[in-house]
């Protein structure tokens, strides 16, 4: 089995249009949210982490952002590799504008053309866990020797159906995201385009050891504690590690009253000695299908540069878990988690080489 390295990364999110600017913005304490208006009785104005790039033509905006993060990740080096596109919303924003068709193949062909991609293209949609599942699938192909390079591209851009859907399910905060916070009242969504370049021949600072995805249908929009525990166990097993080897967990902790509590319950059950915990949701919002790759891009850069998110919210002591206030001293093994719709629970494990 060939080792799989994280050879490149790119990110456009509310914090900035590349990894460097995003880390710099986080170092300065982050950025404020913009506002998103929705129609109807349950509508109104919601905070939103928009990418600071003019919103005009959806396709042109997406093309610019995709090209930017892909180039930052070094995609131009591996155009015959495997491309994984991870999204929960495809180009529905373009459909709203009348500039895209509802057609999966047209969507993947369009992005492949933007990137001048000649290798195989897969589009993964497992809602919010899409880019972590794309990473897991990419690692499997690379481990099996079916390819040497892969690019995981997470795309979630402004569209009304997603915001409206989350609002109708009453999952959105009216104020701010408070991960594991005492007064948490919901999610703040955001946009992100993220790229992680994986390679079996180009060693790098981070290696992907393994991952796991556990679908549990008992909660259509939420997490289950048994599935969270099973996800951790399977991810550790796939990475040939035990719980005590994990130094840092990037949690989901999006500020949801129910899901944060379930995640904390799972953490307590799976990790007798709790590793340091970090959440990036307050800094960049929950970027759904792009979030796994986006948060890994940001977190690995933060760890390399000693930058850490600040949490304004008061921690909820009843959860029995707490986010680390500063960069942990020694981080070798990182477990990154996303929990999503469709009872999807996914984690991957990275090792700093």
């Amino acid at each position, binding site marked *: 089995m060939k080792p799989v390295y994280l050879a490149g990364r790119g990110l456009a999110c509310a914090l900035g249009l590349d990894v460097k600017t995003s880390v710099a913005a986080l170092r300065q304490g982050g950025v404020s949210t913009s506002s998103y208006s929705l129609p109807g009785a349950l509508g109104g104005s919601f905070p939103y982490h928009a990418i600071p790039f003019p919103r005009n033509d959806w396709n042109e905006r997406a093309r610019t952002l995709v090209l930017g993060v892909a180039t930052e990740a070094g995609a131009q080096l591996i155009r015959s590799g495997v491309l994984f596109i991870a999204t929960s919303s495809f180009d529905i924003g373009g459909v709203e504008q009348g500039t895209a068709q509802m057609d999966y193949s047209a969507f993947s062909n369009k992005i492949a053309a933007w990137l001048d991609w000649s290798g195989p293209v897969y589009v993964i949609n497992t*809602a919010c866990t899409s880019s972590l599942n794309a990473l897991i699938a990419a690692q499997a192909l690379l481990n099996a020797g079916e390819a040497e390079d892969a690019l995981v591209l997470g795309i979630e851009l402004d569209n009304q*159906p997603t915001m409206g859907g989350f609002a109708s399910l009453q999952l959105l905060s009216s104020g701010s995201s408070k991960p594991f916070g005492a007064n948490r009242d919901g999610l703040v969504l955001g946009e992100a385009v993220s790229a992680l370049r994986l390679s079996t021949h180009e060693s790098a600072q981070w290696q992907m050891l393994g991952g796991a995805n556990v679908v549990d249908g008992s909660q259509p929009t939420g997490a289950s504690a048994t599935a969270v525990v099973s996800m951790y166990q399977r991810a550790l097993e796939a990475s040939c590690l035990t719980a005590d080897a994990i130094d840092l967990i990037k949690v989901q902790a999006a500020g949801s009253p129910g899901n944060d509590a379930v995640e904390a319950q799972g953490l307590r059950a799976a990790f007798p000695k709790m590793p340091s915990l970090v959440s990036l949701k307050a800094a960049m919002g929950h970027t759904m299908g792009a979030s796994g790759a986006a948060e890994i891009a940001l977190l690995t850069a933060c760890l390399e540069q000693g930058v850490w998110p600040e949490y304004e919210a008061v921690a909820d002591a009843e959860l029995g878990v707490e986010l680390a206030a500063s960069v942990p001293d020694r981080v070798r093994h990182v477990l990154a988690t996303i929990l999503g719709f469709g009872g999807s629970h996914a984690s991957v494990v990275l090792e700093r080489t």
Partner: protein
Amino acid sequence: MKTFTISGRCIASPPPADWREQLTQMLGAKPRRIGTWAELGLYGALRCMADAGEKTLPPQAQIWLGSRRGTYAATDIVLEQLREDLPMPMAFLQTQPSQLLALLAAQTDWKGHACFVAGAEPLALLRLAAAQAGKDGVLLGWLDEMDGGMSNWLRLRPCADAAGGFHVAPAEALFSTQISHLRLVNTGVEVKPVA
């Protein structure tokens, strides 16, 4: 090179006229508010599992689902609803293809790895599934509700002792009732006819 034996299948392309009645019978009740796409998927997946003699899947089995058009019909409804108001919550959930994976997991009291791949050809879906499949194999589905509908499913188990008799086949042969084994090769897929 991975070889699979086909231990169960549902080839419903198009589905039979009474597929909704059959689904109600399998579920024990009429499905509510899950949408046609998910209903058609449940029908095919449960038929396939019944054909394989399974009421649930082993914990290490995986579900891989592909579709050319996915939940477009449900997405159209949400776009229409958004003209004046927020979408209905269940309508929004129906736009997420992976909801079917959760419904199937709940119906079969199973927890495990399941993934939706949009737009890929069935052979590409099989290639992804094969790369991750373990000893308990894969439930692989191909689903579309448009153009008459399609709910084709295979229960695939890894097989180490399938002797000869394989021949190169076009991708469409994956869902033929005339094959007992299939294996991925670099150039595509090889199948073994039913003895």
